[in-house]
Structures are given as structure tokens and as C-alpha cells.
């Protein structure tokens, strides 16, 4: 049994503690920070204000993101058109491409034109594929979002549980096992983990397919896709799962020392109830917040698992575009991913605020 603090002291702190079976709110003023009772209260006017404020705040960020993505093209050493076409290209072709990319104009004008096009859904034309970048992205983003959603699901499904098991029983054997597990999970490069999983579960045990999204010979609808999804999703999720678990565990350890936990114990709630109901409820904002931040890691990792498992998403497309120096596709993919990232963070931020028990206090 880990040191849980003096139980008797907890009883003394809240003299008006209700009988053991009562779980309603403790008397006001008995505790400095009340335990969570609220669920999502999205209809609050201040909540709507928060959402509106965050949405407005996201606009300059997205503009900045688009500017960075645009300016990045200037990093290409030498003449971009010459670089794209290679050294055997004729001067006329290079000039034509310069014209098409608008490279002959001042940079801010170029950006203005480019941004106008982007806002109307025109990301330019893929050099390698000859089709609009928008088509390429729309074609691939579905598979990526599916992979990302599956990975986020794994993170959300296991992160809180692992953190509660570990943090709720600080310094116990289970805690140490979880800490060691997350340490290794957070340290494995995703591309290597993918190869290992592919070899063990795909090639040796033959439990899961190792490439693509459908069975080429015998495509079988959703079950088939899900079967193909397992290994890439695990590869993508593992390091994020580790980070979410570590951070939530840390918060859990803090929460377990709070007066309201002491009070809950004093009310005679079972230890299991104290940890998995009272404490877990109070780590939810941290958990949702850190999970939201994982969207970025998940996108980064997804690039690697898409490559290893040949998953036909935007990450694999990005990789191919890099090899082919297909810069408009690189720009479009990065912009699309960054936009999803900003929006995802916004959602998790608002959600974390909504779940915070002290929000209204």
C-alpha cells in the first residue's frame, strides 16, 4: 500500500462529510477545490465566447502557417524552376514554369496570388502527376484521417487507463511496469517499430496484412480495411500513447494528494472508486489537453507508418513528392496537415476547458 496520507486528517478536514454512500457535492466551502461534478456544458455563454475567441485566434495562425509554407519554397537552392525540371531542361521550359509558378514577380505579390488561389481551393498543379494538387490531397486525405482517427482512438482508449493504474498507485509495482513500458514506447522510432511489427505480426505470425489498405486479390469492404489498419495504427499510436500516459500519470499523482481525494476517502469510498472515479475525473482536462497535442505527433508518425506499410495516405504521397521534388504537392500536403492540426488543437483546447471542474469557480 503506498503512502496515501493520513486518512484521519481527511476526516477532520471535512466535518460535514456525508455518509459513505452519498456521492453528491460536498458542502460548499469545505474544500478548496471541489471534485468534478460537471460534464460537458457547451451551452454556457462563456463557453461560446471561448470557442469564438479561439476560432478568431486561429485565423492569424493559419495565415502565418500558409506564409511559412509559401516562403519555404524560397529555401530551394538556386532557381526553383531549374531545380524542378532538372539540368537537361530547355530554357523555354524553365521560363514557362517560372511563369506558371509566378516566380518573376515580387515575393509578397506571389504570396498574395498563391493565397488567393489556395483560399479558392487551388493549390497549383502537381509536377509529377500533372493533376491539380487539390485532387491529389482530397484523394489521399481520407485514408490518412482514417489512420489518424484509429491511432487517436488507441491513444484515448489506453492512455487514461494506463495513467490511472500507474498514477493512482504511485510507486507500486504496476506503476513501475507502466513507467518502463512508456519509456520504451516513447523512445522507439516509429519507422523502426513499423518494420518490427511488420516482420513479427505480418511476415512471421501472418496475423495481419503488411501492405496497402485493401486485399488486392479479394477486397472485402470495411472488415478488410480494418484488418489492414491494425499494424499502421499501432505504429502511429505507440509514442503518443506513451506521452499521454506519462503526462496524465504525472497529473494523476498530483491529484491523488489533493484535499478532495482525502475527503472522498474520508467519506468511506472504496479505494477503487476513489482512484477510478474521483481522481480520474479530475485528470480529464489534462488528459484531453495532452491528447489533443498528440494530433501533431500522430501526423508526424503517420508519415512513417504510411511509408512502411504502404498505406495510401497523404504521408506516403508527401514522401513520394519529396523524392520527385514535386514541391506544389509538398506545400499542399503540409498545409493541409497543419490546418487539421490547428483545428484539432482548437477542439481539444475547448474540450479540455469544458471538462475542467474549476472552470466556473
Amino acid at each position: 500500500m503506498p503512502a496515501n496520507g493520513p486518512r484521519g486528517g481527511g476526516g477532520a478536514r471535512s466535518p460535514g462529510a456525508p455518509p459513505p454512500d452519498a456521492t453528491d457535492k460536498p458542502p460548499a466551502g469545505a474544500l478548496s477545490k471541489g471534485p468534478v461534478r460537471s460534464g460537458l456544458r457547451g451551452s454556457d455563454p462563456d463557453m461560446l465566447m471561448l470557442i469564438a475567441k479561439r476560432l478568431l485566434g486561429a485565423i492569424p495562425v493559419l495565415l502565418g502557417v500558409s506564409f511559412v509554407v509559401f516562403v519555404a519554397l524560397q529555401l530551394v537552392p538556386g532557381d526553383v524552376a531549374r531545380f524542378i525540371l532538372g539540368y537537361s531542361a530547355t530554357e523555354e521550359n524553365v521560363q514557362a514554369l517560372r511563369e506558371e509558378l509566378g516566380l518573376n514577380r515580387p515575393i509578397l505579390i506571389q504570396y498574395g496570388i498563391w493565397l488567393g488561389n489556395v483560399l479558392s481551393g487551388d493549390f497549383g498543379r502537381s509536377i509529377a502527376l500533372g493533376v491539380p494538387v487539390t485532387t491529389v490531397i482530397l484523394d489521399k486525405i481520407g485514408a490518412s484521417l482514417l489512420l489518424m482517427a484509429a491511432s487517436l482512438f488507441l491513444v484515448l482508449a489506453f492512455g487514461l487507463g494506463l495513467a490511472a493504474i500507474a498514477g493512482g498507485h504511485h510507486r507500486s509495482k504496476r506503476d513501475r511496469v507502466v513507467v518502463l513500458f512508456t519509456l520504451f514506447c516513447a523512445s522507439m522510432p516509429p519507422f523502426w517499430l513499423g518494420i518490427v511489427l511488420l516482420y513479427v505480426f505480418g511476415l512471421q505470425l501472418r496475423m495481419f496484412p503488411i501492405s496497402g489498405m485493401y486485399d488486392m486479390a479479394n477486397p472485402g469492404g470495411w472488415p478488410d480495411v480494418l484488418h489492414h489498419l491494425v499494424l499502421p495504427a499501432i505504429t502511429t499510436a505507440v509514442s503518443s500513447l506513451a506521452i499521454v500516459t506519462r503526462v496524465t500519470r504525472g497529473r494523476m499523482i498530483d491529484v491523488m494528494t489533493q484535499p478532495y481525494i482525502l475527503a472522498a476517502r474520508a467519506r468511506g469510498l472504496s479505494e477503487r472508486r476513489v482512484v477510478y472515479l474521483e481522481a480520474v475525473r479530475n485528470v480529464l482536462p489534462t488528459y484531453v489537453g495532452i491528447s489533443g497535442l498528440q494530433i501533431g505527433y500522430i501526423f508526424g508518425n503517420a508519415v512513417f507508418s504510411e511509408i512502411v506499410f504502404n498505406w495510401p495516405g497523404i504521408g506516403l504521397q508527401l514522401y513520394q513528392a519529396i523524392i520527385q521534388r514535386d514541391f506544389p504537392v509538398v506545400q499542399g500536403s503540409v498545409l493541409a496537415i497543419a490546418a487539421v492540426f490547428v483545428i484539432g488543437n482548437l477542439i481539444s483546447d475547448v474540450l479540455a476547458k469544458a471538462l475542467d471542474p474549476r472552470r466556473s469557480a
Partner: protein
Amino acid sequence: MTAVATPPRRRWLRSPTLRVLLSDRACATGLFLLAVICFAAIFAPWLAPFGPDEATPMFRLMPPGTEGHLLGLDHQGRDILSRLIWGARLTLAAGIIPVAVGAAISIPIGMIAAWYDSLGAAILRVMDVLFAFPMALLAIMVAAFLGPGVENMMISLVIVLLPYNVRVVYQATVEQKSMPYVEALRAAGTSTPAILFAELLPNVASAAIVYSTTIVGSIVITAAGLSFLGLGVQPPGAEWGIMVAEGRTVVFVAPHVSAIPGLFLTLLVVACSLVGDGIRDALDPRVRASMGS
């Protein structure tokens, strides 16, 4: 396990920080692992049984335990152990150099941002934009546009690190700015550069350094990832990320070629995070108080 207790006689071990570090078993393990890898990197020419590019095509893809080749051979018949030892150099450099450069650049930026409010607001806006990119993705984009190569890879990693470093320096400076001693210096008529770079710098730099040690691991992974994508170290260069990438093509017949360098990469990152966490804890007075007795 490595030594837990510290012999009190050795004078250089008397520093309280170092003592806490070594009495933290996890951190001591990490330090030991890192020391082994650094040792291998520094003395590679003497330690490695073969050169990094020395190939015996006859034995290509032979498994670990093949005579004279402890960890086997890769698809070109190069000794994996030797490539690991040589590769430790670039793998470590790719993690440490960008972090050091990033910290050095971000210190003046973050301090100026914290000192001058209006300029600070602008700098923080720019950092917000960089924060809006997933870390790996920004590195991939910048490296892809700069072109493949070790220097470009490091430049892209410095750019990726910038917002994180600047935020740490900014917060540390804001904290120091409100301290009475700064008020006293100002009242005494000390010039702003003198306050910033003579008085504040030591405090702010230590925050930046502590933060940097915690982030080396993830930069090692990102750097290896860039090499895996073909954007960092170029073949036939020896680096652990590119070794994994090269092994991927032969995973069907010789899984050890990519498994072994990846395992070492994982161990290196584990070591980095153990040490990073240890340093952070050792400098945290609360932890130190609880461990010091």
C-alpha cells in the same frame, strides 16, 4: 545495474547536483548507456573491427554470430557492428549539434522578446505560427526544400526547435525580470545590455540548457527519421536511421539488418530521456530536498 551509492572520498563527486544525479538509479543507468555510446563514437577507428564501408559481398546478409561479425552483415556485406560504432558519430551529432545551436540562438531571441514587450509580442506571434506545425512535419518540409544532406538536416532541426527553446527562454526571462535584484540594477542605472547579458544570462541559460537535455532524445529520433526518408545522411554514410532504412528493403530475408540499428537507436533515446529527466529533477529543489537526506 550501475553504481547507486557515491563514494564520498572522490572530490569531483561532491557536487550536490552530480550526487543526486548518480543516486538516481534511472539517471545513472542513462548516463552509463550514453557514456558507452559516446565512447564508441569517439574511439570508433580503434574499436570498430572493420571500416564503415568495408564490404565482403560474399557474406552479405549473414546473420548475427557469423564468424568475425558479431552482429552480422548488411545487404552489401558490410559489418553491422562496425557500421554501428562508426554511425554513432553522426547519430549523436545529429541529435546534439542542432539542440546546442538551437539553444544558443534562442537565448538572445527569447531574452529580447521578454524584455521589450512590443517586440516580444511580435516574436511570440511568429513562434505561435511555428508551433502550429507538427514537429516532424516542419522538419520534413524544411529539409525537403533545402535538399538532402547532413547540414541541411541540422538547419531544419534548429528551425523546428526554435519555438520550443524561445518559449523556455522567454518564460525564464520574464520570471527573472520581476525579481528585486533586477529592479535594483535598473535603479542603479545599469544599462539594459549589461543587465540582460551579464546578470540575467546565467539564470536564463541554465533553464535553456536543462530544457535542451530533455529534448535531445526526440531530436535524435527526428534526425534519424529524416535520414530514413532520404533527407539526412546520404548513403553510403553510416548513421543509425539510414541503416534502418537500408535494412527495410531486405526485411523479408534478413530482419537483423534493420532491427539491430533500430534497437540501438531506441536505447540511445531511452538513455537521453533518463538523463534529461534526471537532470531536470536534480535541479528541482523540491526533488533534491526529498532525495538529499
